């Protein structure tokens, strides 16, 4: 499963941060969540939750001097026994998806809530999605297929309404 971010849908409400901090840390403190919404304006205009992508080759782990970061069942985790709080992982992550809070000894890092991410459930805009991996890219694939340039079309009446049906099929020549 993969946690996907769709920034075009994000409103910047930060309900994901609340859900994470309340659910995972037991406190109402968005600064203690494993997801952060970046809000930029007006150049460019974007609202984007930043959250760990559970990389196949975790850069956070490559930077760790004590090998405290490990990958297990698709989730990148921190072994707190080994962690020396050097914070190297935080600067090593290319997405900035690990966080520090001065009350906490260890970095904040998403563990997908062991398979049922609270942020995804809470997002009122469906800007966060938790998908099987094979769905990744599906939206683009669908859009590419729908917008295929060389479609044929036929007009027809559906009751009173005129409708157009588009289809992709080569025109067959009668003589062939």
């Amino acid at each position, binding site marked *: 499963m993969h946690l996907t971010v769709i920034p*075009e*849908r*994000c*409103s*910047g*409400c*930060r*309900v994901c941060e*609340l*859900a994470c901090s*309340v659910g995972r840390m*037991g*406190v*109402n*403190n*968005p*600064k*203690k969540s494993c997801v952060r919404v970046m*809000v930029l*304006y*007006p150049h460019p*205009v974007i*609202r984007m939750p930043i959250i760990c992508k559970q990389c196949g080759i975790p850069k956070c782990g490559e930077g760790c001097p004590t090998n405290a970061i490990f990958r297990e069942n698709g989730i990148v985790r921190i072994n707190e026994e080994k962690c020396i709080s050097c914070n190297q992982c935080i600067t090593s992550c290319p997405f900035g998806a690990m966080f520090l*809070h*001065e*009350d906490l000894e260890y970095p904040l890092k998403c563990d997908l809530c062991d398979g049922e991410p609270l942020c995804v459930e*809470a997002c*009122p*805009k469906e800007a966060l999605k938790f998908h099987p991996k094979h769905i990744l890219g599906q939206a683009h694939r669908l859009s590419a297929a729908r917008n295929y340039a060389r479609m044929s079309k036929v007009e027809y009446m559906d009751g009173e309404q005129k409708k157009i049906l588009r289809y992709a099929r080569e025109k067959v020549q009668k003589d062939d």
Partner: protein
Amino acid sequence: MIKGGYFFSILDVDLTSGESNVVPLDEKVAYDYIGGRGFGARFVADLVKNSRKRIDPLGPENILVIAPGPLSGLYIPAAGKNSFVTLSPATGIYGDSSMGGVFGVELRQAGYDAVIIRGRAPELSALAIDDGRINIIPLPEARGKTTLETEQIVRQATGDEDMKIASIGVAGENCAVFSCVNTDWSRNAGRIGIGAVMGSKNLKAVAVRGSKDLPVHDLDALMDVSREGYEHIASHELFSFWQDQGLMSVVDYANTMGILPTYNFQQTVFERADKMNGYIMEDRYKIGDSACFGCSMSCGNICLVKEGKYRGTVTEGPEYESAAMLGSNLGASNFAYILKANALCDEVGLDTISSGGIIGALMEGQEKGVISADDLDGKTLNWGDEDGILEIISKIANREGVGDTLAGGSRAILARWPQLTGILCQVKGLEQSAYDSRAAISMALGYGTSDIGAHHTRAWTVARELENGENWSLQDKADLVIYHQNVRPLFDMFGVCRLPWIELGFPEDYYRRFYAAVTGVERTMEDLLACSSHIYDLTRSINVNLGISRKDDYPPARTFEDPVPSGPTKGSVVSREEYEKILDIYYEKRGWSAEGEPPISL
């Protein structure tokens, strides 16, 4: 015994000396006044009570209270509100205005229930509150900068990109009495001149960063109510429509009901409303949604002009009031221009409602020949004159030419041109919001008796009366106004937004349950409403102390004098006799004297 919801800490900053103190919040004050606007009202009442001479709202003796509420920042629907409370330079009396966004949440996370700002900084400065560290940073380079530019300058000066900033534009620096304070790009505490009060204190911005856990007595119990609450809101049939259009959907509603301000409140139906409604916005301009902290309704619309004269204009907005007051009220329907005017008001930091009300009155004044082109620096302002409107907005912000008078708001304008009395729609010096009240006497009463002047959020009763009020008595109508005036302060006291309640029917009992889970104190709705009713009495008492009485509780003259000329409310006008009656009923129900004096002291 309150077990959560408060840090019991008030930050008291004196800009004159540069000193700041943390003062403990008394538990009884927390219990009786709850927070936000309630705290602000209490502190302003103390100021007025303890002052021997009349306080100049723009003098260093005035205070500015910034107060989120005990529910601000919590995981409950739309809890991102924050109140600014002060004596208003627009009206000379009590004033408050609230903003959404995340500023108030950050302030609470810094560990304060409220901030009181006094005095005047020796030079243009920013107040930085970084968790427990307080800094007053001289910021002369920010003079004349827009609100957005100021955010960047403050972030550079503090070296912290995470700071959340509330700033004023050039209008605030110049003490234009309807200047706002702006945060998160386009969220404003818009009314009554908070920006001018900041400007008078040489306070260009307040920057906040906080990291503390918010105090909640029973987080599990809160989550139970909260999940139910979010689901309740999401299940409303208009929820997704609301996410799509937000308050812009009100343009069509107001036009259909015959209450849309048009040509300076002369008419109530705009023939080109379909050029500036929510659908036009969605189809041609909207590029994204925007929400305040913790809110699923995302009523903010980010809009971009992609072609034509205003190409490249991008802003969050407009919402209904801005679209109506800068659009139909000025005879302008070009949505791209409305966006431009809205963005300009945000940049210079001017209230869109007051700006639209004042410019509308100038246009009508010139049309009727009671003021001349010479009065406006040789310019004639025609209905829908986009360039003229944008120019006047800049002039007001910069106090150039006639802008110097206009920046003084309704009171200064009427002092210079008394002939605009029947034309400029205002109460107590505050320009009327974007709902015509001639067909709904309860709305007129709401404007007339609002403690801050003609603002709609005190008692927005117009829809209820027009939809259901055909057979209501004056008693019923006065009851509705009082109910609104009593329930609405609660939202500002808790630090939550009223829109889930008023727009999507979110039951107010939820807030009692939120409050109980957060504070560990079970209170009845009646008990909580008694607190907010007391706030209404208290702010009235402040105003009475400053000279307000029955004579000031009347809606704009037009409400009595000019029947609606066309549309579904055609012929409607409020009779003076009826109004006197309903005002008597209102005072009596409130327990105020016939002159409008509440039975409490400051």
